[in-house]
């Protein structure tokens, strides 16, 4: 039988509890969040090795509570939610899918693939299911917001920042509905009073410039110690802010906004500078040590010297060349340089206006005049930079202009002269010339 009374026993329990609590408090006391040395031993170790949840990203109290409440059943619960999400997607229960996805991220806030997969799912797959363009845009926004929320929760995944940029840049800027989406990005139809949605475009920027900011954030994160990305080869991953700037500069020409020539020039000049000074001057590791894309002998020799003269200059050049090919660096550099010339902008403008004069107003004389002017300038540019012939978009624009110009001549009952601007390009690519001529005939006869 017990020698001590019930009250004494409880007292003993209490003392034991207090004794056991003491080391827990000593080791586990939370830090103040600022100094590494604050708090108990565990807290200090946590901040030293970056193991705390706060070091991964913002902590969502709901998520933390949910995981606590589920005890060890988090895995089972998230599995069930994943299969529910698949089921809801196939049965087109979009509201349910969105709610389920939200629950999944409560359970797995630091699981990168959830954010990547479901963000993509919402922005690309779900949006495509809807018939109304405004509805589709709403889901693209949902995807973008989801991805941005993911990046807030996870400071150490540059991929999530990159994906946010990709949705803003490429989904909004390159989808079939890009004309609408780009407009909606500045003036949201689902928002009372219009204007940009502050959640995805707080500064009311062009979508490519907003995307550029996100790509830049991804690059900044990627530079942090201990952070890597597994999305793309590094040389490509780091090109995206510049590529967004190029996309932005391109929109003026694509959308025929030639009234602000100075802005177009500025956009291309920014692209050109950033390309050479940011992306081009960054160091990338190769088997032959570090290289830069914008390389000359002087820079490379300095790097070789820094690295202890282990590789030759030829080897460095060899690897610079390989990386430039991989990233198509020389092409982008050339494009930025050519496009920032006032002459090129003028040529694009003439070709665009000539095309519109033919298609919209059937004014063959005006079209011919503008196209001839544009084609002549283009011929001159090609003479100066023959590498541009290899560039698909540039070639397509030139060849299509020739086709329309020939159409104008035919419509006027004139013979096509034996020599005309861009003839050498026309003769060099007979297959494409034929393809565009057939397309022209199918659309406009002749």
């Amino acid at each position, binding site marked *: 039988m017990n020698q001590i009374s019930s009250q004494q026993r409880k007292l003993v329990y209490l003392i034991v509890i207090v004794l056991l609590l003491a080391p827990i408090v000593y080791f586990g006391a939370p830090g103040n969040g600022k100094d590494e040395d604050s708090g108990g031993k565990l807290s200090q170790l946590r901040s030293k090795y970056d193991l705390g949840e706060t070091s991964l990203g913002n902590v969502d109290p709901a998520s933390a509570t949910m995981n606590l409440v589920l005890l060890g059943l988090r895995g089972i619960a998230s599995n069930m939610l994943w299969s529910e999400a698949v089921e809801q997607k196939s049965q*087109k229960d979009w509201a349910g899918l969105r709610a389920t996805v939200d629950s999944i991220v409560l359970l797995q806030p630091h699981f990168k693939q959830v954010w990547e997969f479901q963000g993509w799912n919402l922005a690309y797959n779900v949006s495509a299911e809807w018939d109304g363009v405004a509805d589709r845009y709403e889901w693209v926004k949902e995807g973008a917001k989801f991805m941005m929320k993911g990046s807030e929760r996870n400071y150490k995944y540059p991929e999530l920042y990159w994906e946010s940029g990709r949705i803003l840049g490429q989904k909004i800027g390159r989808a079939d509905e890009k004309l609408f989406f780009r407009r909606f990005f500045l003036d949201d139809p689902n928002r009372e009073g219009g204007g940009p949605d502050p959640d995805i475009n707080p500064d009311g920027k062009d979508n490519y410039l907003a995307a550029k900011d996100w790509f830049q954030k991804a690059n900044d994160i990627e530079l942090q110690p201990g952070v890597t990305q597994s999305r793309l080869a590094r040389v490509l991953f780091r090109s995206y802010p510049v590529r967004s700037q190029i996309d932005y500069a391109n929109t003026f020409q694509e959308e025929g906004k030639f009234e602000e020539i100075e802005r177009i020039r500025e956009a291309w000049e920014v692209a050109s500078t950033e390309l050479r000074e940011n992306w081009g001057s960054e160091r990338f590791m190769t088997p032959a040590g570090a290289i830069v894309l914008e390389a000359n002998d002087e820079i490379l020799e300095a790097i070789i010297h820094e690295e202890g003269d282990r590789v030759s200059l030829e080897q460095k050049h060899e690897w610079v060349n390989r990386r430039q090919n991989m990233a198509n660096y020389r092409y982008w550099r050339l494009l930025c340089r050519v496009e920032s010339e006032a002459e090129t902008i003028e040529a694009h403008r003439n070709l665009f206006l000539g095309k519109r004069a033919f298609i919209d107003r059937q004014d063959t004389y005006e079209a011919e005049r503008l196209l001839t002017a544009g084609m002549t300038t283009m011929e001159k540019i090609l003479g100066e930079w023959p590498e541009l012939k290899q560039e698909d978009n540039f070639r397509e624009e030139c060849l299509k202009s020739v086709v329309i110009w020939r159409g104008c001549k035919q419509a006027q009952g004139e013979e096509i002269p034996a020599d005309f601007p861009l003839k050498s390009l026309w003769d060099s690519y007979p297959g494409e010339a034929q393809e565009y001529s057939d397309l022209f005939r199918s659309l406009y006869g002749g």
Partner: protein
Amino acid sequence: MSFDVVGFNFLEGLTHFLKVFGGVALTALIVSFILALIQYGGRGPGLYFKTLWQALVDFVHTSPRRVWAITELTWKESARKKALFVFVVFAILIMFAGWFLRDSVGRADLQLKIYVKFVLTAISWLTLPVILLLSCWGLPSDIKNRSLHTVVTKPIRRHEVVLGRFFGFTLVGTVILLVMGIVGYAWTVGQMPEAAKSELVGRVPVYGDMTYSNRNGDRPNFDDPNNLQNPASAATNVGDVWEFRSYIEGGTKSRTFYDFDNIDVAAAERAGQFRIEYNFEAFRTHKGDIEKRLLCRITIVNKETGLRVPLETFEVKEFSNRSADKTIILGGTDEEGNPIETITYREENTNEVKSVHIFDELLKGGDITVEVQCLDPGQFLGMARPDLFIRMPDRPFYVTFFKAVFGIWLQMVLIIVLGVTASCFVKGPVATLLTFGMLVIGSGFSELMQSLAIGTSEGGGPFESAYRMFMHLNPTVSIEDGPLKTIMTIVDQAALGFLWTVQYLFPQFEYYNMVPFVANGFDVPWKASLLPSILVTLAFVIPCLILGYFSMQLREMEAK
């Protein structure tokens, strides 16, 4: 979300119940007679009939006062077991639910679904396990503690103990459910954003029969008994993995016909409006004009007079969660509040503008057909039977909410009945497992069990399945003929025959799930959901009471 509402045939259900009940009762009577003969020899039949007679006497002389005494005792016991602590858990859930659910979609119109699902699921998940444990452990712990000895020595009949337990636990459950239901309702209504308050209704749909015509306008005649065609065969399958909807081609004579008979025109007239709600899906084969949604037209045809009234064309707002986006209203009131009773339309052949009285002419007789066509050539419009319905005057939200709570109550009563009955002849843990097993099978496996029992599932019965697993054969691979196959088939037939016999002894719990109706803003239908739930509960209460009585009557009260 769409769900097909299939009516419940009461007479068929009753016949089925009588067959199963009669069969089981007869088997029990015969088996017990034989047992009595074996155990007591010549005295057996006498004892047998005496017991049956006694049962009849007992049931007739049921004393409500004594039953109430046991009910009160059960209530006190449950309170002492701290069953009501479940309120604390519920309160905590409700307090913090807002964290998880508020604005989780960012769109006010989707909140109803999330709130309702949360509240009703929380109520049933909290209540049912508590009630299951209470009802399964009540009698066994009484027997173990010998407190039942003091009860049975009183002038009380055994079935009154069982009845008292039923009512006692039901009372506990009812109080818990009532409080949770009221709090849950107030919370749901309170949490709903102002912009979405209009979604808090119980829509009353009337569904029609659906048929299609193909692109040439040919419509299969289903009145012809020789026509064995599938109603969807005239429509197009666009290759969607979810084969719920069939599609009609735009810009052709392809149509969907929804036939409605005996619509309550008077009710619509009293409400001053006639509403049709649709939920179609667009499928594009080419980009078309992406600025516009697909164009659609609905024509109402009076079957009695042949009057055809094409309504205004409209763009299909697919997947919209706002019912206002998808409702066509005929009638209503004009800007000055005067009732609109006529509708103006263009005659199909002559294009002449005409006017017709909605209730006296267009809906005269109550038999109408609603024809749906897609007007965009090359595009397709998908629809299923529940995708178009006539929306009768709405019921208030609390009606449909509390109908769903009533559904949980019925489920709870069924669990109490099963639990108490099981605890009459087995101990607490076994009773718990048995009841829980019935709950799991009844709610998740009834379809599988039925497909096994009627032999439609691939891969054979248990032995064939085991053989296939062992030999790594998938269910579609045929097994070679031979003695092994014959043996397996025979053994499997015995097992599946047993399953066929007992399949109806598991209640179908899916009837009780009324949450989807409430969550989607529908009234819980009487015929398709409430009636079957009530009948399923009743169908188990009566046999369980009888089984409970005999178990208690014949049970040795000494704790073992």
